[in-house]
């Protein structure tokens, strides 16, 4: 009994940091409508800077001074980020904001390694909280007790700040109607900046307070952000009380999940999150949001099927690509196969995101599931390659069926956070369930059979599959199903009003996209001969998002160009520098700010400009539907 009680206290202590970070994210979202992906990075920076301050300068400012100063320094960095980057993208679609802040996260990850090195750092204990208290024979660190008290204390301070100060009243007013606040003479710019500073301060404080408990390392950011997204989805975006309750809930579920399912503890959190979403899709304390701004939405360029000459051009490009084995060596063919596979993967995400308006931040889950599906069938069941290739993606279909059902209940940023959380859950299962997946060691020796073994044969197989997938998705776009999907994307209400079951259409699109991603993953497993949890990871999901973005969110086939260009660039980049995340992150930020329409979008705009009969109305900006 005492053991369970101590486990409960450990959960409460973990909840403190989680609450700090989640409340910061919630406050920032409330006013600026930006889901700050970089919040995990600020948390991590808080921990690293606090580590340095408490190690090197504790004489001058003491341990607690170091903690607070660290949070202040990071808050100042946050102000810089807000003024330089976010102010430019407040009116951009939310997908772009998520991507830009994710790009920042990538940059911070590399910078942290550059400054503090790659190994884990062990921080000092907090002075005055060295020991442990005995609870019926079980030890509870006194620092945990301190954190348990701190959580509600911060909640109280935040409550006073929001209820009792003019700043708090302005923030609450701006959360509801920021334009009206400006129309009453309040300078929004500084309100936004101050809110961002407070939110980042909370995240950094959460990170700094972790150093006496946990090692500081450069993957803390993603671990916390996934937990934070789960907290936000359960508690409701914009609610501080919700963040507190959900942080306690998630921390306790983690603490006890280890006892119930020691191998896959995350399952419990998933089950609770699913239950909450069914009962209250906007979270326990959240409010239903107005329909989100649609993801594509910068311009209206009507889509049309390819003309005859464009079809011939595409065929010619395919024939040209098929001729690569005549000139390229084995390495070129392996790269070519990989690019073809990523064309399939990116096209599947594009289908969901541009056609369906569902910007998933966890699309790699279905890619990875397809790959694991092949590995299970080929390695464990010993099925022939053709059968494995055809059946393996069904695991992706299954995953998309289950997760998609819950995800399409939400839209906009909630959808993005939920898909990311699901993907991380699949990743954790693959990582933790060593008996089945091999965990970190992956599953090795998934080689193609004789007929596909040579690089040129596998290359032809890959581009054949890519061509088929792209054509099939294109046909779907211009089918009645595609029209219904686009109608739901553009106006869910009007779609409903003409008898379209929006949720079912979106769910179907999610499953189609997941299955096609599974096909890509299946081929990928055979290409690499092995499969690791990385193939389900968040960086792969973001790779796909960047490919779609680079190609042009609002074009039908730009994604093919985007995938080819991006994959070539990143393969080249990894061979050139150790700081690929830094460069890639900077690149993502740059695309969002400078090139939001993507390569194909730019080409299209130029093309339209040449055609004088193109009506000006269609090329102009449309107001967001708010």
């Amino acid at each position: 009994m005492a053991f369970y009680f101590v486990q409960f206290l450990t959960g409460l202590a973990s909840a403190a940091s989680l609450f700090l970070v989640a409340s910061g994210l919630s406050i920032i979202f409330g006013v600026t409508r930006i889901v700050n992906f970089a919040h995990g990075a600020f948390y991590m920076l808080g921990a690293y800077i606090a580590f340095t301050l408490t190690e090197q300068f504790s004489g001058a400012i003491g341990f607690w001074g170091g903690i607070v100063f660290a949070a202040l320094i990071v808050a100042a960095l946050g102000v810089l980020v807000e003024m330089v980057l976010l102010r430019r993208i407040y009116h951009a679609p939310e997908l772009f904001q998520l991507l830009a802040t994710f790009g920042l996260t990538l940059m911070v990850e590399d910078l942290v390694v550059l400054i503090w090195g790659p190994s884990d750092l062990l921080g000092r204990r907090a002075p005055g909280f060295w020991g442990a208290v005995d609870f019926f024979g079980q030890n509870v660190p006194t620092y945990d007790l301190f954190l348990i008290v701190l959580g509600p204390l911060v909640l109280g301070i935040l409550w006073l700040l929001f209820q009792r100060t003019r700043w708090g009243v302005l923030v609450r007013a701006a959360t509801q109607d920021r334009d009206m606040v400006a129309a009453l003479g309040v300078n929004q710019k500084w309100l936004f900046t101050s809110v961002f500073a407070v939110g980042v301060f909370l995240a950094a404080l959460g990170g700094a307070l972790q150093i006496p408990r946990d090692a500081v390392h450069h993957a803390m950011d993603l671990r916390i952000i996934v937990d934070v997204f789960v907290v936000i989805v359960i508690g409701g975006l914009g609610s501080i009380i919700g963040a507190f309750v959900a942080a306690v809930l998630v921390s306790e579920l983690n603490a006890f999940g280890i006892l119930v399912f020691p191998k896959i503890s995350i399952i419990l959190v998933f089950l609770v999150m699913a239950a909450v979403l069914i009962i209250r899709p906007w979270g326990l304390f959240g409010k239903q949001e107005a329909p989100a701004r649609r993801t594509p939405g910068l311009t209206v360029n009507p889509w049309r099927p390819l003309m005859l000459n464009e079809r011939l051009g595409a065929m010619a490009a395919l024939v040209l690509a098929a001729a690569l084995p005549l000139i390229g060596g084995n390495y070129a063919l392996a790269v070519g196969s990989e690019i073809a596979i990523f064309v399939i993967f990116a096209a599947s995400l594009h289908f969901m995101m541009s056609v369906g308006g569902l910007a998933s931040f966890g699309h790699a889950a279905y890619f990875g599931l397809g790959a694991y599906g092949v590995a299970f069938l080929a390695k464990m069941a010993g099925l022939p390659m053709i059968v494995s290739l055809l059946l393996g993606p069904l695991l992706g279909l299954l995953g998309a069926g289950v997760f998609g059902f819950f995800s399409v209940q939400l839209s906009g940023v909630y959808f993005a956070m939920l898909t990311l959380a699901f993907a991380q859950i699949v990743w954790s299962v693959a990582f933790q369930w060593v008996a089945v997946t091999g965990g970190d060691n992956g599953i090795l020796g998934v080689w193609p059979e004789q007929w596909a073994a040579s690089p040129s044969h596998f290359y032809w197989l890959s581009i054949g599959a890519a061509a088929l997938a792209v054509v099939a998705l294109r046909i779907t776009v211009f089918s009645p199903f595609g029209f219904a999907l686009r109608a739901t994307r553009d106006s869910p209400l009007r779609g409903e009003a003409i008898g379209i079951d929006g949720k079912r259409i979106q769910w179907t699109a999610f499953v189609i996209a997941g299955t096609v991603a599974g096909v890509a993953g299946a081929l990928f497993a055979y290409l690499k001969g092995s499969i690791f949890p990385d193939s389900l990871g968040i960086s792969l999901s973001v790779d796909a998002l960047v490919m779609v973005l680079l190609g042009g969110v609002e074009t039908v086939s730009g994604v093919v160009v985007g995938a080819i260009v991006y994959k070539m660039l990143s393969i080249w980049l990894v061979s050139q520098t150790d700081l690929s995340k830094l460069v890639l992150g900077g690149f993502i930020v740059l695309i969002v700010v400078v090139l939001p329409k993507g390569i194909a979008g730019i080409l299209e705009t130029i093309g339209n400009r040449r055609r004088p009969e193109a009506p000006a109305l269609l090329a102009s900006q449309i107001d967001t539907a708010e």
Partner: protein
Amino acid sequence: MKLSVQDLNSHYGPAHILFDIALEVSDGEVVSLLGRNGAGKSTTFRSIVGLVAQRTGRILFEGKDVSGEPTHAIVRGGLGYVPEERRIFTDLTVDENLEVGRQPVRPNAPHWTREKLFALFPNLATMRGRPGGRMSGGEQQMLTIARTLMGNPSLVLLDEPSEGLSPKIVEQMVEAILTMKKEGVSIVVSEQNLHFARLISDRAYIIERGRICFSGTMGELDARPDIRDAHLAL
């Protein structure tokens, strides 16, 4: 001259909404901007306070051109704006709504305290702790005017204050506007209701399809029933 709008043109995307609008308001004057639904009354107000991005022309407020300034700076300068849709902060109490509008005292404008505002709108005094979302339409209309007055403006743009209100509340609204005028606030009221406008205004403009098509005193308007019938729904 309190406010002088010259050659104001506004666009929403490719659509041209306002054409060469000219308006003038003297110190302490109440002026009506009359016109049907969709004539351009709200767009005129939104353009003056800088809420319409695509606009050209000069907007002289107390002699200074404010057309290049952001909304919050224009409002801070003493030009208050009460939007048509009221836009009360529904989660905030009456007191908190007023707090959002509070600005420093201005030498050339009447100073409004909460007490003075509660005397102006007695209904609000009884519900200071009530969330804005749980108020009637008339109470919300009073609150939105009081909220703007908390900024101690020297001129207020009132967008359709009588819309959707019961006759009794409209009477109170007339009283309130006349009190505001007596205190020295200049007011521009947009209205469809000629009767209401006549009770409060010194002069009137009529706007139709984004163009000003009449300007004169209320007496001059009454002398031209043809114009009145052509441009105003009665």
